[in-house]
């Protein structure tokens, strides 16, 4: 024990180890945050992107820090709802209905155009519906009628950006550009206060609320994907998933390998040969194609994948590495001494052989974690990942599938890739430094 404490103090001389630990701690912190702030079921729900979940998000919006690299201020998402900053004017008509006018004012000071304009209205009441007028007022006083004689549905979603008539009205400009464009310089938006007004007639007892979403070009710290999901969720959740997969696979595979290797080497003879044969056969089996087959025909659940990965990695190359170490350890005089004072096979393997080699297990174990993390990511990138869970691999898969690089959404691909790399580097730094600490022959003074 004292031996190890002294070694820990010497850690200061290994800057790579400190760097690796820092990185890993950051990821662990991210994982803890992810799990507590966005519980699993919530994450799954959000990722499924059911109706209504991501309404307020733009699709394929970049992260807000991209603004640092561009001139001017890119538009962020603006949400104005009748609930807070909207102004509601109601006027009873006298025959059981009321005229409702909701004004949604907002300030627009960005240098670019929003990505989308959507208007969500909730008008739940029974009875006949009256026509509604929706109009738009620009800072310079122009009023544009968006819709007239429109009948609101109980849960109404008006995609202003996709209104073809409106586009025609705006001389062919896409509505979310046309409505904001400066008449003098149609490339730039006009800055100032805009107002959207919704006027309708509803029964007196009814409630109408409406919400305008001007989706920005940039949204969130990580941006959004093609289904307007906030990438942050996937980036955050990718950490615990990756770590869990990597660590569990490493434990399941390495620890089994470690113990089986000791047993095989100790008993020698037929058992040793059998294990070695199993290893050699296993090494030839292509892991990825096999996983693809299983994923395709059986189940893509992450637990199935994890189980298979563990089973396929027990008799791996590590088996032979450990075997070489055990063969050497077997020759130590204290093993012979133990035989002389009557130690049984069980004791030999678990009390004398394994503890001797156990210190080297730790660095090997840590070094193999990134391997499994990447394996899981690879499966996701190939489209075989668990469909429910947001992981980095999944994000990359989506990005590639949607042609992110062609469309200029670099962040979509770079963010998960960088995180994967960083996690791998973190574990590798720790693993290689520990290797040098625990294996004195690798140390260079």
């Amino acid at each position, binding site marked *: 024990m004292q031996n190890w404490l*002294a070694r820990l103090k*010497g850690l200061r001389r290994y800057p790579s180890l400190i760097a690796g630990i820092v990185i890993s701690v950051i990821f662990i912190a991210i994982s803890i945050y992810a799990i507590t702030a966005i519980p699993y079921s919530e994450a799954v729900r959000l990722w499924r992107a059911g109706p209504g979940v991501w309404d307020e998000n733009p699709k394929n919006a970049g992260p807000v820090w991209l603004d640092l690299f561009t001139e001017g201020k890119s538009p962020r998402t603006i949400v104005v709802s009748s609930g807070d900053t909207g102004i509601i004017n109601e006027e009873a008509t006298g025959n059981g209905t009321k005229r409702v006018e909701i004004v949604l004012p907002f300030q627009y000071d960005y240098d670019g155009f929003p990505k989308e304009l959507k208007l969500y209205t909730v008008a739940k009441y029974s009875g006949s519906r009256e026509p509604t007028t929706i109009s738009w007022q620009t800072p310079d006083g122009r009023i544009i009628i968006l819709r007239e004689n429109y009948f609101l549905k109980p849960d109404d979603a008006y995609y202003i950006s996709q209104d073809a008539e409106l586009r025609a009205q705006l001389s062919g400009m896409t509505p979310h550009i046309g409505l904001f464009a400066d008449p003098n310089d149609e490339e730039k938006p006009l800055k100032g206060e805009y107002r959207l007004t919704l006027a309708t007639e509803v029964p007196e007892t009814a409630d109408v609320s409406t919400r305008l979403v001007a989706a920005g070009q940039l949204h969130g710290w990580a941006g959004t994907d093609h289904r307007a999901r906030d990438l942050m969720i996937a980036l955050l959740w990718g950490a615990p998933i990756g770590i869990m997969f990597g660590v569990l696979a490493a434990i399941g595979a390495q620890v089994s390998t470690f113990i089986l290797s000791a047993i095989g080497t100790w008993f020698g003879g037929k058992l040793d040969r059998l294990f070695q044969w199993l290893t050699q056969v296993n090494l030839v089996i292509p892991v990825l194609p096999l996983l693809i087959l299983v994923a395709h025909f059986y189940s893509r659940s992450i637990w199935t994948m994890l189980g298979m990965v563990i089973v396929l990695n027990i008799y791996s190359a590590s088996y032979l590495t450990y075997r070489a170490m055990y063969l050497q350890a077997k020759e130590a005089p204290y093993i012979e001494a133990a035989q002389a004072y009557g130690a049984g096979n069980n004791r030999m393997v678990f009390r004398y052989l394994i503890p001797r080699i156990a210190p080297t297990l730790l660095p090997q174990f840590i070094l193999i974690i990134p391997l499994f993390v990447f394996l899981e990511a690879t499966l996701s990138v190939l489209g075989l990942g668990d469909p429910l869970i947001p992981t980095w691999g999944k994000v990359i898969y989506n990005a590639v599938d949607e042609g992110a690089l062609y469309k200029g959404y670099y962040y979509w691909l770079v963010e998960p890739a960088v995180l994967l790399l960083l996690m791998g580097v973190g574990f590798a730094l720790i693993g290689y430094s520990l290797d040098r600490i625990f294996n004195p022959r690798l*140390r*260079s*003074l």
Partner: protein
Amino acid sequence: MTKKLNHKQKSTARVAISTEKSNGPLLKVEDVFLYFKSATGGLVRAVDGVNFELNPGRSLAIVGESGCGKTSLAKAILRLLPRNVATYKGRILLSGTDIMKFGDERFRHDVRWVKISMVSQAAMNSLNPVMKLKDQVAEPLLIDNRTSKKEAYERAREVFRIVGIPVAFLDRYAFELSGGMRQRSIIAMALIADPLLVILDEPTSALDVLTQANIMNALKKIKKELSLNYIFITHDIATSSELADEVVCMYAGQLVEHSTAERFYRDPLHPYAQKLMASVPTLHVYKKPEFITGQPPSLLNPPEGCRFAERCTKRFERCQKEPPLFAHGDEFVKCWLYERG
């Protein structure tokens, strides 16, 4: 520091060492220090201020227990230093020339193996398994094109004859030879460049008794025939007497006694040397061996004053200060008991 000598300078330098062969001591080690940086950050004082002289035609045995610094001293003389050296200083005069001042390249070219060579512990196990012996033995002459290939092989045959291996074995590989023969090949390799001084570091400890004795015989023969000087390093006192004219005894990185063989093996001066001699079991004469209580101090943190004091039965108050190396006739002792010479 490592200036490459041009051809003219090289030949002059070589001449500079060899002509002074006859005057003064062959080897003079003056205030040599060698400290290593230990893994935990401390300083291992392997050689802590060693001084001695060796005259031509005399062989020296360096004895001491494990960890006393004798192998480090050999490495210091031959400048075979590891990467974690902290301090390396002093003067080492070979036939009057201070070889400590040589740059590394000049040292390699002019001194190592050319003037001083070494046979190290279990070197016989480090022979290249895929090279024929004649190539290995001739290698010191073949590098840098010191001689032509023909001359080098001729020299190899000559040294094999000197060490007593049939010349036919030059065309064999190392694994085809027995342990004793392999060690003789190593000795041959050390002799091939005609050095002035050969350092032998436990050359026979891995061999059987009879093989060892045979090799000692060979070394004695070589010493007479080639008037070679040996520095023989070993922890085995009995074996050291086979080749020693003079004996240096080391303890905790320091030289504690330097006396003639007659003196050291019969009636040593330093209390440690006395105890060491008393602990050696003898075969032909019955005596009850004694042991020394305690253990040698660590080279990381040697005690103040005389380093043997805590185990010495003859210690007194003076011993709290480190004694200098006193002269005792022709001999030297590092002990306050000999203050008055």
